[in-house]
């Protein structure tokens, strides 16, 4: 169960060329366009940069009250066409909290060729070292880790009330 609470993983196949997806995730400007964030620096291993939430080019809705909210990104690894990873503070959206001294989660984007396009695996790990009160918020904003737990809770809730 340790890993079930420590990481979130999403695996999808994008109907786009490998090279196109690689640029979208590994170039700070391109990443910012779809994610909806404007960075003050480039994605370079070891770089500590900040990003401010802004409107995504593919989302008609503005980010609302979080517009302009700043996030710290620490760029970890870049292996061209294959892997991009960074660390951040998950769901660090409370303006009254200084997250800088807290552990960060590691977000990894991995690419490989797949039938019908490019397979993307997004893994966010390290939730077990995040303080509990933050983890609840982080798990609200990020996904997957609770699948096992949800499964039996769902089964239970499907039963008629006692």
């Amino acid at each position, binding site marked *: *169960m340790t890993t079930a*609470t420590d990481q*979130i993983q*999403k695996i*999808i196949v*994008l*109907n*786009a060329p490998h090279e*196109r*997806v690689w640029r*979208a*995730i590994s170039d700070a400007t*391109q990443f910012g*366009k*779809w*994610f*909806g964030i404007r960075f003050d620096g480039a994605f370079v291993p070891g770089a500590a940069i900040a990003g401010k939430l802004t409107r*995504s*080019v*593919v*989302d008609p809705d503005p980010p609302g009250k979080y517009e302009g909210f700043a996030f710290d990104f620490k760029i970890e690894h870049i292996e061209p066409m294959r892997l991009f990873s960074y660390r951040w503070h998950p*769901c660090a959206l409370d303006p009254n909290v200084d997250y800088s001294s807290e552990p960060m989660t590691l977000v990894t984007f991995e690419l490989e060729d797949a039938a019908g396009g490019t397979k*993307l695996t*997004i893994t*966010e790990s390290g939730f077990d070292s995040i303080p*509990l*009160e933050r*983890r*609840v918020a982080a*798990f*609200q*904003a*990020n*996904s*997957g*880790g*609770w699948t096992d*737990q*949800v499964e*039996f*809770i*769902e*089964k*239970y*809730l499907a*039963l008629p*009330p*006692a």
Partner: protein
Amino acid sequence: MNAAPVFAALGDETRLQIVARLCKHGPLSISRLTDGTSISRQGITKHLDALAGAGLVRSKREGRERIWNIETKRLAEARRYLDHVSAQWDAAIDRLRAFVEDD
């Protein structure tokens, strides 16, 4: 609602097993809960107290035994909370897909 205690209580394999067992076979006495496990009566009681503290289980006395059951309402709240879990990455993936596929 503060879901933190629910997550903390469920963040332990033994307690998850207890909750799963009560979901499937409850209500159960402590002796029934310890049947077929290597956990002591004292150990189970400690975990049940933690789960009760999070409002996930409740007990009532029947004769000499204490009978434990799942607190449906609290689990339903946790369920609603967990429904939000996938939202942000899924939304980000939707945006990435729109970005790379429509380009």
